[in-house]
């Protein structure tokens, strides 16, 4: 039975390499849920469904209200002085609730030595997320401007408590809360999404939570705009504001330009040019973002 797909951009991770090859031959035969291609977003860096850097209101996986779907992803970001590896999985229950996990590894590489941390020093962070769709349907409700709206929380735990404190951070764990609104404007072949996040996270939590400069929650914005060029291909841009809680280094907003391509109903790949600004005193962190995802 072919349960086609259509959802887009899913990707996965651990198995991405293998699946990528296998899926070419068999995806058409695999039952993969019922969402329309590219209507489910991709996996965001923090694990849930979203753009690349931004979180969206859509629920991960290819399933509709009639089933349970999911998505796995592996992401690699390579900027001037650092690399970031992330992998994760998300489950979408009846297109209503999303549960996600992600692990991020922020590798300072040669820069680690210059920072006095040692070459190849790596910050790791685990993220557990939950998202609840509260109203609207991003895809079907094309006769109203009301978007799909979801609320969510992400618990993040960093493994470098001592270093986090040494650079002025307050804690090695924290919880982000967000509300996200996403709309497919089919009429114009556009996908628009915005989110408001309450957070204390420094560099999404990779450098801890709270800081000597500011230790309170602040409201940050995440926005994405994408144009669908075909059933398989979307291009667009994202912007994400960030707090700047640490005295030792400024933290900048993030920007990316992306292309998301659905190779088949299961596997998709996202490639982006990212500008992450200044990270831990190293300026102009620009480079590539590649994410491979598998959705079911």
């Amino acid at each position, binding site marked *: 039975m*072919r*349960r086609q797909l259509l959802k887009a951009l899913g990707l996965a991770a651990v198995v991405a390499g293998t699946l990528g090859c296998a899926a070419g031959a068999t995806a058409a035969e695999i039952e993969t849920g019922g969402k*329309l291609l590219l209507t489910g977003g991709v996996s965001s860096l923090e694990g849930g469904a979203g753009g690349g850097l931004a979180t969206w209101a859509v629920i991960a996986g290819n399933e509709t*209200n009639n089933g349970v779907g999911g998505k796995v992803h592996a992401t690699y970001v390579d900027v001037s002085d650092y690399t970031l590896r992330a992998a994760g999985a998300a489950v979408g229950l009846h297109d209503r609730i999303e549960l996600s996990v992600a692990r991020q590894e922020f590798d300072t590489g040669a820069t680690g030595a210059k920072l006095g941390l040692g070459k190849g020093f790596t910050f790791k962070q685990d993220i557990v997320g939950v998202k609840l769709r509260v109203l609207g349907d991003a895809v079907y409700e*094309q006769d109203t401007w009301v978007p799909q709206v979801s609320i969510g929380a992400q618990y993040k735990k960093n493994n470098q408590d001592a270093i986090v404190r040494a650079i002025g951070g307050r804690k090695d764990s924290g919880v982000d809360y967000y509300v996200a609104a996403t709309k497919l404007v*089919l009429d*114009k*072949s556009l996908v628009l999404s915005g989110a408001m996040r309450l957070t204390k996270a420094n560099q999404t939590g990779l450098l801890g939570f709270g800081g000597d400069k500011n230790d309170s929650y602040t409201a940050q914005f995440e926005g994405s705009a994408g144009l669908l060029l075909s059933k398989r291909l979307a291009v667009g841009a994202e912007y994400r504001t960030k707090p700047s809680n640490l005295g030792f280094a400024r933290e900048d907003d993030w920007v990316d330009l992306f292309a998301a391509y659905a190779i088949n109903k299961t596997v998709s790949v996202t490639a982006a040019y990212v500008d992450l600004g200044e990270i831990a005193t190293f300026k102009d962190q620009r480079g590539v973002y590649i994410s491979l995802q598998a959705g079911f």
Partner: protein
Amino acid sequence: MRHFTQSAALAAVIALGLAGSALAQDAVPPGEQPVDPYVQSNANAGAKPMDDTRVFEAFRGKDGLVRIAADTVDRSMADPRIKEIFATTDVPRLKRTLAEQFCYVLGGGCAYSGRDMAAVHKDMGVTNRDMNALIENLQLAMDKEGVPFFAQNKLLAKLAPMQRSVVER
């Protein structure tokens, strides 16, 4: 005049005999089955027509829509995901009314003579999966007709809200 009345009466008797009890029935187009009486109205199409006729032209007018509607139905009837739902369907009628509906909605100036979306899909038990399967088939039919992707999405934007009337579970 009297002659005319006589022949009309005769015709009515014959029609009655053929159509069984379908007294209130409009003439049934050739190849189609009669349906229970309903009030015909363009409002049954479930969406307001577009003002701009460029999209209609991108679909190659009514002829293009007739081909797209027929191909969508053929694909759906061959689609293992949803074919059972169409097992007892009056196929010529579905193809005709679907083409009328597309044409009306795209501002092509057709009248829609079919039934209302909620009424016609009632108790079919259509799911969102089924809905998306049908939309995929429509997309393939539009691809085959060579309709540009951006124009395709304008028709889909008109049809998508009908999910509320069509999908029951």
